């Protein structure tokens, strides 16, 4: 009898603990959006942080001159209500919103942008994205210490509400760059109240101190647990904003995030456990979203490695991979086989390259390169960072290369930082890589493989390629420009310092009650357009 009482008490206790309304349902009534944000953001200083979770948070707190279009494509007015571009494309004049305000009520002026850009370019701040502004006249010299006079930088405050930028060359993707948070403004008085212009550890980003100009204000921040932002009534476009709060959860474990979504604790997940994607596709899960995403998964080849200096070997490896099979049998989540480095359709750009799956041709190329009976192809290493998905893909490619070329492949997986260090010093033969566009333009991909770019890492240099990309960046006519980039991309694929494998998709779960969340190539979703409504 006594045991029965205890059991009864436990059941009552547990039942009392279970709340009858889930956070998702509760959020629907109160317009509170529960957002799975991947990992704990490094911070919210737009000039210091890097990463996607930081972007999700900053897009609700601050705003640049232009803002992301919820449907993708051309940016929309942000802190600037309109802009003019000079005929030669090198001078941009931005007209700021007259009712633009900081969250503390101060007017947002052109001086704020000039000071913020000076801060981003200040070398001692140690920002990781100063190159976003290298297209501005004198910006690179200022950042590299060649000049310490910011007046030499092509930034001009015409009046309180007019901000003019002088570029080195016509840079057709300049407006796109402005949707990157590193170009967004910070409130000078607040920053200086809690530190100096180059203080990385200033306390101005803390709740209670933080001042910015976005549609939401920072309300609370529980480290590694939850960040809450609330609607900013002083935002110039506050009438459009329907959400009252957004709760960001830094759920790093994808399985936990999936369970939280299923239990009604999240409206949106940052991603999906890869093994669940095919299951949800088969189940026709109504909450599953698989959207196009501007990213390419590829293998980097170290062209300085004696085995891979010969372009015929690099091509043989590329031609021996069946990309269709990879996406159908290995990744299985709607990824698209990649035959170019730039994902097709980036801002209307269609690459004109082909990478055939032709084992016979691949074998022949290896023979031409001098490999065959008597001179066996040496063992080749594929380097990847510890991750089940990378391992599965590497295993599939190992099998394809062994089967189609008879080449012995060794898989080497390393901890993330070791993998990065080995790539950086060129201590690899083949290594897995991924590249996500920072802005919607082919340049964000093709620029990385120019000589002396830190992200090239293949050792490959080609003067014609470099010249064509450079020329394209100064070309104002879109058709001519894309034609130049297509020529550059052809050289790239012909030389094959990288082997594109597939174009990414963005897979995640979204409650059907969330409206105004549209798929777009950069996965930028401006929260001012998002609202909750019972489906």
């Amino acid at each position: 009898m006594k045991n029965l009482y205890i059991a009864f008490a436990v059941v009552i206790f547990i039942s009392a603990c279970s709340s009858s309304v889930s956070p998702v349902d509760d959020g629907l009534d109160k317009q509170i959006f529960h957002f799975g944000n991947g990992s704990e953001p490094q911070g919210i200083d737009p000039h210091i942080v890097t990463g996607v979770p930081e972007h999700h948070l900053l897009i609700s707190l601050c705003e640049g001159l232009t803002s992301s279009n919820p449907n993708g494509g051309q940016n929309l007015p942000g802190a600037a209500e309109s802009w003019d571009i000079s005929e030669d494309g090198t001078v941009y004049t931005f007209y700021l919103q007259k009712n633009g305000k900081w969250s503390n009520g101060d007017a947002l002026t052109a001086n704020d942008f000039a000071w913020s850009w000076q801060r981003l370019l200040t070398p001692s701040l140690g920002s990781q994205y100063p190159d976003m502004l290298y297209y501005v006249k004198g910006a690179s010299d200022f950042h590299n210490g060649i000049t310490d006079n910011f007046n030499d930088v092509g930034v001009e405050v015409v009046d309180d509400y007019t901000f003019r930028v002088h570029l080195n060359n016509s840079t057709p993707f300049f407006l796109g760059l402005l949707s990157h948070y590193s170009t967004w403004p910070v409130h000078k008085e607040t920053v200086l109240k809690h530190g100096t212009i180059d203080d990385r550890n200033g306390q101005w980003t803390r709740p209670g101190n933080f001042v910015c100009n976005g549609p939401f204000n920072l309300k609370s921040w529980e480290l590694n647990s939850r960040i809450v932002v609330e609607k900013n009534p002083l935002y110039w476009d506050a009438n459009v904003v329907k959400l009252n709060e957004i709760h960001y959860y830094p759920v790093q474990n994808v399985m936990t995030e999936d369970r939280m979504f299923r239990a009604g604790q999240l409206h949106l997940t940052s991603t999906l456990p890869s093994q669940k994607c095919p299951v949800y596709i088969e189940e026709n899960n109504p909450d599953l979203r698989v959207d196009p995403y501007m990213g390419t998964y590829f293998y980097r080849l170290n062209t300085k490695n004696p085995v891979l200096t010969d372009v015929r070997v690099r091509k043989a490896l590329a031609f021996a991979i069946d990309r269709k099979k990879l996406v159908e049998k290995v990744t299985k989540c709607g990824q698209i086989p990649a035959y170019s480095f730039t994902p097709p359709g980036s801002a209307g750009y269609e690459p004109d390259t082909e990478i055939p799956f032709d084992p016979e041709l691949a074998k022949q190329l290896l023979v031409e390169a001098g490999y065959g009976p008597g001179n066996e192809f040496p063992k080749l290493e594929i380097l990847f960072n510890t991750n089940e998905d990378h391992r599965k893909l590497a295993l599939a490619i190992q099998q394809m290369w062994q089967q189609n070329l008879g080449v012995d492949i060794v898989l080497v997986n390393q901890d993330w930082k070791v993998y990065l260090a080995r790539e950086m010093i060129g201590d690899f033969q083949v290594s897995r890589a991924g590249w996500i566009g920072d802005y919607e333009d082919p340049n964000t991909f093709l620029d990385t493989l120019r000589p002396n770019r830190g992200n090239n890492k293949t050792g490959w240099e080609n003067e014609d390629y470099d010249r064509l990309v450079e020329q394209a960046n100064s070309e104002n006519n879109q058709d001519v420009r894309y034609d130049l980039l297509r020529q550059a991309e052809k050289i790239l694929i012909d030389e094959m310092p990288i082997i594109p494998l597939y174009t990414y998709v963005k897979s995640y779960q979204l409650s059907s009650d969330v409206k105004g969340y549209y798929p777009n190539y950069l996965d930028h979703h401006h929260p001012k357009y998002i609202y909750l409504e019972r489906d």
Partner: protein
Amino acid sequence: MFKVFIKRVLMAIPVLLAVATMTFFLIKLAPGGPFDAEKAVSPQVLKNLNEVYNLDASQWEQYTDYMSGIVRGDFGPSFKYPGRSVTEMIGIGLPITFELAIYAILIALVIGVFAGVLAALKRNTLLDFIPMAIAMIGICVPTFLMGPLLVLIFGINLEWLPVAGWGQLAGDKILPSVTLGFAYAAYIARLSRGGMLEVLNQDFIRTARAKGLSETMVVIKHAMQGGLIPVVSFLGPAIAGLLAGSFVVETIFQIPGLGRFYVEAALNRDYTMILGTTIFFSAMIVFFNLLSDLAALWLNPRSRDVS
């Protein structure tokens, strides 16, 4: 006992110094740095960052700087989270991990001691075999399996409890505490059974029974005091282990504890955070070991006489 205490405290100082020194130089040996990322930073940016964090100074200079900081109680700024100091982050994570550890150890003690004592008293019966079999399962089933299993049953299917979070929703502390506690309950059950069996055969128990004390009194007042010494000795390292090793449960249940900082710091090469948490956890382990040794001394009259 006081002498033992002083001796052990004095011994802890060189131990912690050695831990700090070894960790400092070992993490610098690991390939990769705190600012390496998929999108590589330019050499100029890297130079600026190294200057900001004093990483361009010689190893010895960095070491002496760091050690003099520790003496002042300053563990330095986190490399990964600009604007946050390591001391602040430990201060945020520790109370949560500690709370989780306390709940877990309480659950472990209640279940473990009850099951262990019952098994010892009902030796070689079903009441011995069943709890011990469950204990064996508890030892064998890792928390990364137990956690999701409990979540699936109580969180998703029955919808009784939240599946993640800490202190945000009613009842969200139950499943992580039970998951972590269950693994330790299993150990405690086996230790208490062993300890009790040894004590129950001793002369003083026979004497207590001969005096006509009830069986309950014999067990509670006489047998358990000696029988649970192995459990007490286990508690010190167990609490230290719970503090440092709750990473898995913290990850499964999205708990903002110290364990996650510790592991992520190592993966991120957040040098100051790795050092700060390692030194802190070492101090915890030394402290709780000392505490459990002192408790065991106090409980065991023979050790008390020797000391």
